[in-house]
């Protein structure tokens, strides 16, 4: 039994700067790979979570991706409206628990105002407000958990991007106000930043029929078909999986398209996964290059220390002792760098998730998965194996030759 650590630690102490740089290089290389994998997973899980409230989406014929981005992720863009006829048909179709119009275009202080029905606000009764109540009449609003408005606050909608007319803008800002009557629990998605109001108010403020007779203050279905405007999207809550498929088939027509957001997301994830694979490959290549460069530098260093190792052997150290000194010096650096990189990568992913969440509005849950662990452990393992090379090379040199080096 011997103890090579005194010499290993002494060498680290003597070359603090080099050790620090080596550790940093390996750590950064590993962290890049870890962050790529962790962030892709976070993006996938976060985006999937956001789509949980949307079993089936119905919209006007066009881009499924656009429909999902606009309605599920509130990436508000001008998309064709699906007709009031389709809205009425979905609301009355068998197997539908609710069919909620999703109408947007206005905002308050950057928080999107979305016109819908109280069934959607409560997610079919699954949600209860954390404060106040759901809206029950025109002029009332329910805010998401991330909207900084208190119960009783009065808000005026600001015009959306399609209002270019100053007069219309004035009508918007002065003719309508909402009173906040409730707050929803956190959903950890972009809808935490939304303000939900009766869809009739959104129609009215855009000078459209409200689905009810003039002068009526009713909200929600049933609507009068002739007075029912179109909407960008309809969120349909089916009563069963079978009903969902039936409804999807029923509303795929010349007038409408119906889709499961999960289908669209799967396609996106497929692309994301391909990108992730490519970036993982690049990260792996970077790591391999860094490890190789580090090993070459260490090898040159060890060759320059041939005399030190020859002296150790001359004064009684076995070849196994010297082998262990060299192997440990390399292995500890690589394994240490990999471990540090794992922590750094997770930290970077956590920070990135926070930053991205503020920009896209939904939470990305950073987590450590087996893929990242496998990456770090594999790199460390390969490093441990490759570390035997300088160790073996140093043993090939005779002691006397090393003493003359």
């Amino acid at each position, binding site marked *: *039994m011997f*103890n090579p650590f005194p010499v290993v*630690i002494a060498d680290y102490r003597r070359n603090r700067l080099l050790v620090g740089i080596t550790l940093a290089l390996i750590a950064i290389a590993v962290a890049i790979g870890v962050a790529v994998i962790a962030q892709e997973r976070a993006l996938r899980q976060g985006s999937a979570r956001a789509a949980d409230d949307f079993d089936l989406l119905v919209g006007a014929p066009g881009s499924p991706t656009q429909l999902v981005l606009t309605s599920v992720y509130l990436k508000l863009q001008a998309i064709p409206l699906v007709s009031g006829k389709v809205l009425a048909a979905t609301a009355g179709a068998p197997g539908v628990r609710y069919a909620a119009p999703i109408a947007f275009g206005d905002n308050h202080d950057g928080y999107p105002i979305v016109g819908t029905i109280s069934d959607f606000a409560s997610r079919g009764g699954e949600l209860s407000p954390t404060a106040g109540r759901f809206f029950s009449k025109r002029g009332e609003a329910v805010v998401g958990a991330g909207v900084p408005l208190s119960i009783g606050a009065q808000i005026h909608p600001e015009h959306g991007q399609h209002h270019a007319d100053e007069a219309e803008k004035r009508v918007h800002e002065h003719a309508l106000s909402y009173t906040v009557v409730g707050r929803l629990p956190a959903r950890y998605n972009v809808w935490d930043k939304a303000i939900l109001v009766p869809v009739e108010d959104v129609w009215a403020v855009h000078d459209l029929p409200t689905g009810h007779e003039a002068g009526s203050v009713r909200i929600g279905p049933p609507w009068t078909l002739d007075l029912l405007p179109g909407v960008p999207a309809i969120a349909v809550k089916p009563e069963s999986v079978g009903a969902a498929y039936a409804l999807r088939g029923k509303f795929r027509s010349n007038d409408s398209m119906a889709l499961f957001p999960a289908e669209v997301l799967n396609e996106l994830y497929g692309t994301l996964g391909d990108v992730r694979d490519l970036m993982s490959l690049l990260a792996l290549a970077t790591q391999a290059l860094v490890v190789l460069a580090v090993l070459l530098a260490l090898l040159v260093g060890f060759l320059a220390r041939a005399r030190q190792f020859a002296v150790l052997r001359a004064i*009684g150290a076995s070849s196994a002792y010297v082998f262990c000194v060299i192997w440990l010096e390399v292995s500890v650096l690589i394994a240490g760098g990999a471990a540090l990189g794992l922590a750094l990568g997770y930290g970077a992913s956590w920070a990135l998730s926070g930053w991205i969440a503020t920009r896209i509005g939904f939470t990305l849950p950073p987590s450590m998965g087996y893929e990242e662990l496998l990456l770090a452990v594999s790199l460390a393992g390969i490093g441990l194996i490759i570390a035997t090379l300088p160790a073996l090379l140093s043993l090939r040199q005779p002691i*006397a030759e090393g003493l003359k080096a």
Partner: protein
Amino acid sequence: MAIIDDHLKVSDLRFRFAGQAADLFHVEHLTLSPGQTLGIRGASGAGKTTLLHCLAGIEPVNAGSIRWGGQEISSLSQSALTRWRQQHLGLVFQDFHLVEGLSALDNVLLPASFNAWRPASILRERADALLKRVDIWSPGRPAELLSRGERQRVAVARALLFEPRIVLADEPTASLDPENRNTVSRLLLDLAREHGATLIVISHDAALLEQLDGKLELRDGALHTLESAHV
């Protein structure tokens, strides 16, 4: 592998570098009694260090016999030679060869780490005592902060940690100023004699050589006797 007695006996020792036709040296006969001190001098390139390496089992010989205390070392395997050096040999180099990053005490204790996880307390006490004996009073000081004289004194202490019966020193005072030269020479000799070790020193230091029991010169590939050594 038991040491029968501490006599050095060299017979018909030949060494030549690979690819060379002629021997670098040929030592027909050399013996030393236990505890005897011997100096070897010679011109640069004569082969003094190589001869010392052969006697230490570091350099394999082409022919001949080297027996320390009855143990033929020229036929030992590398691992057996390593064990032999651990147990019986102390080496002092011209350039000290301390491990920077370790303290003076840890440098003296370094050989203990070659066959144990932690040095035994008796070795720690011996290392402390040796450092005091060589006038090093800050055992915790890092080797790189020691003066040249201090480093060589620590190297002498390291060579004597296991109380070897054989001490080989290659130009131990060549890198030192005159004052440190005298100090190290005196310490090396005193400690070798205190431990009863057989001491062989390669040196050009006339003052050091004068204090040794015998002196040889390696010249023209052969050892030429001067005093008290059998050649």
